[in-house]
């Protein structure tokens, strides 16, 4: 082996580091499409567009289930009593404090629209069941009230509200 000066050493080191760095950048870039393909594809995203729901056929005290983006959405037409029950509870006593007014659209107090997925581990609660005449989750016993707020059981938070708006008095657009 020949003796190498330190100047040659740095030049060689620079070459090695540059090659290694470019290789690392290439490997990282190559992984990107391999991961990205797991995200929802274009047709899934297009199918997740907003949907319109006609509320006319839902009688007072009744509720329906529709699907949006693969999730069940409960739409309940609440009775006077159900609304009063929901509003009578002192908010501070709730595990996830939220007023009923904050969970419905102003002027449309009778309509409760929630994503019907239990905030515990993702089961679908049953409507009109449980001690509060709201929702009851059969999996591990979470009980929600007529505003979809958690009252008992292991679930940590209220049933989430999907993005929606009233297009007319009897029609909503979810999404």
């Amino acid at each position, binding site marked *: *082996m*020949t003796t190498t000066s330190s100047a040659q050493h740095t030049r*060689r080191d620079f*070459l*090695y580091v*540059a*090659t290694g760095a*470019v*290789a690392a*950048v*290439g490997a990282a*870039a190559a992984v*990107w*499409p*391999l991961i*990205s*393909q*797991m*995200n929802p*594809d*274009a*047709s*899934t995203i*297009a*199918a997740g*567009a907003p949907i319109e729901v006609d509320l006319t056929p839902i009688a007072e005290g009744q509720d329906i289930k529709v699907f949006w983006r693969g999730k069940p959405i409960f739409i309940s037409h609440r009775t006077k009593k159900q609304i009063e029950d929901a509003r009578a509870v002192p908010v501070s006593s709730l595990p996830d404090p939220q007023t009923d007014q904050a969970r419905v659209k102003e002027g449309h107090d009778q309509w409760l629209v929630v994503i019907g997925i239990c905030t515990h581990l993702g089961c679908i609660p049953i409507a009109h069941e449980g001690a509060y005449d709201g929702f009851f989750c059969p999996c591990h016993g979470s009980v929600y009230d007529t505003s979809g707020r958690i009252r008992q059981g292991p679930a940590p938070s209220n049933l989430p509200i999907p993005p929606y708006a009233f297009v007319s008095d009897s029609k909503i657009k979810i999404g």
Partner: protein
Amino acid sequence: MSGPSSYQPSHPALQWFEKRLPLIGLIHSSFIAYPTPRNLNYWWTFGGILSFMLGVQIVTGVILAMHYTPHVDLAFNSVESIVRDVNYGWLLRYLHSNGASMFFIAVYIHMLRGLYYGSYKAPREVLWILGVIIYLLMMATGFMGYVLPWGQMSFWGATVITNLFSAIPYVGESIVTLLWGGYAVGNPTLNRFFSLHYLLPFVIAGVVVLHVWALHVVGQNNPAGVEVKTEKDVVPFTPYATIKDGFGIVCFMIFYAWFVFYIPNYLGDPDNYIPANPGVTPAHIVPEWYYLPFYAILRSIPSKLGGVIAMFSAIIVLAFLPWLDSAKTRSSKYRPLAKQFFWIFVVVCVLLGWLGGKPAEGIYITAGRILTFCYFAYFLIVLPILSRIETPRAVPNSIADDVLAKYGKKAGPMAPVILALVLAGGLVMGGSQNAKAAEGGPTPPSLSWSFAGPFGKFDRGALQRGYKVYKEVCATCHSMNLVHFRNLADPGGPGFSAAQALAVASDIQVKDGPNDAGDMFDRPGRLADKFPAPFPNENAARAANGGAYPPDLSLLAKARNYDRGFPQFIFDFFTQFQEKGPNYIDALLQGYEDAPKDFQLPQGAYYNKYFPGHAIKMPKPISDDQVTYDDGTPQKVENYAKDVATFMMWTAEPHLEARKKLGLQVMIFLIIFAFLMYFTKKKVWADAH
């Protein structure tokens, strides 16, 4: 992998682990300390390239399987939705489909290298036979993978290849039924092919481990063909072989990327963009290019059983090579006669490949028989005799001597050899595209398209006009089952805004339902809907079109081609020509003429000089001034044809612009990387000489 490891871990935790499972020691002795002959040339990097390709195929394949549906009704469309909808799906599919070709290119070079340098000779017989087994497994895997997209070639290729087994006396028919799982190629066949196509690569990986193990027991052969004698003959695998293989792999990746990003369908048969149809056989069934030499051998024997036996023997004979060639000298470098016969053999293989893509008629049959004879004669006559009568030149004493001798005279005949190989490869690969030569008819003129070449982009104006022509003319008969209204607003498309695309969609009524009451109903189209068919079902479409079914137009530009002739396809490779489909569509629309006097036009058909057979069921669809253009483009058939062909090219490949753009970035990256690797390699090897 041979003998106890010299690896001594320094960290106590590693020592503890090493005593219990000497895995790191195994890796160390196999891929780091492993002594490599120092005179290996670049033909030896193909082993590394093959490992790399196996990895690429497994990774991309596992991912494609996440999106693919192995069902006869869904397979074709699931592959199309991978290419159209899945994030980077087009890239993954093209990497995988072209990866198969790259794999075979590399394996053929690897095998020919073994043949030339006598790598099959004692003590490497088992290593060689394991290689033949890998090759057989690769052929089975490649074939089954080609069936999965369930296009016309998939279906009919599967039918033809499985029918080979019907040649077996007495039990043949039952075996074929067993392979199909039915009375014809069908859903059970597709399902099992998918299962096996997923399984076999892991079997290959297993045999590769054995192959590498056997290699590390007996040590690598080398261009001089002499065994390693002293320490001076070898260098440690890492960094020397690692960096050299790495450089080889990067160069190979440039070649690979050329196909993936610029001519991704060059090696595939356009008929596979037509969904499988058990009722119609394509005019010529051609296997993928890498099977063509064997296909030629199959066809050149005028007996069903004989052909099948000949074809399988052509591969099996390789396994007996170590005993057929008993010459003491390994490397053909020192065997003047063997060297010449080797190159003749290579030419024979290439010509066989070329013949395999030609229709089996006339002179091609005779040529096929002569070449088949030559192929077998090389193994069964030439090599056994040569090894007895040839006097080889003196081989170097040691590898070190070989290296020293080489230092005097620089640069072998590498460049011309590579050029010859590229041309030969082009010949074989182009051969499969050439197979339709018998159909005749004038060749459509080649037009200049805005999307041609590496920097090509769609002409937005042409796309928008083309959409108008499609909507007002073509859409009255044809569907576009793979195109959605949302695609009109996609980047790389005609450049509609989302609102415009929605307006287009809501103009049409879509059948939907059943609703809660169990009724079907009409609703305005949404962005997520597809371009609907104008007829409620196939029979209605046939009835409205004189019995001919108007095909779906989404893939028309990819599913149509015509013969470009020899040697045009070699230039096509370099110029990245891929405008056959649009040229054909344009020509077809302008090819309507009055039938020549002596031409017998069938009832209800029209004369078109570009349509195969010249008689087409579709009446001339468009004439001057039929569609109003607002942008001042002349309202002539010529312009209509070109615009609608452009539009169809986009519907066939909506991500064309994304592909070319990413391709440019990848190419620049790879070239920079290749330079860096080359200089690093030079520096690393500088102290080995």
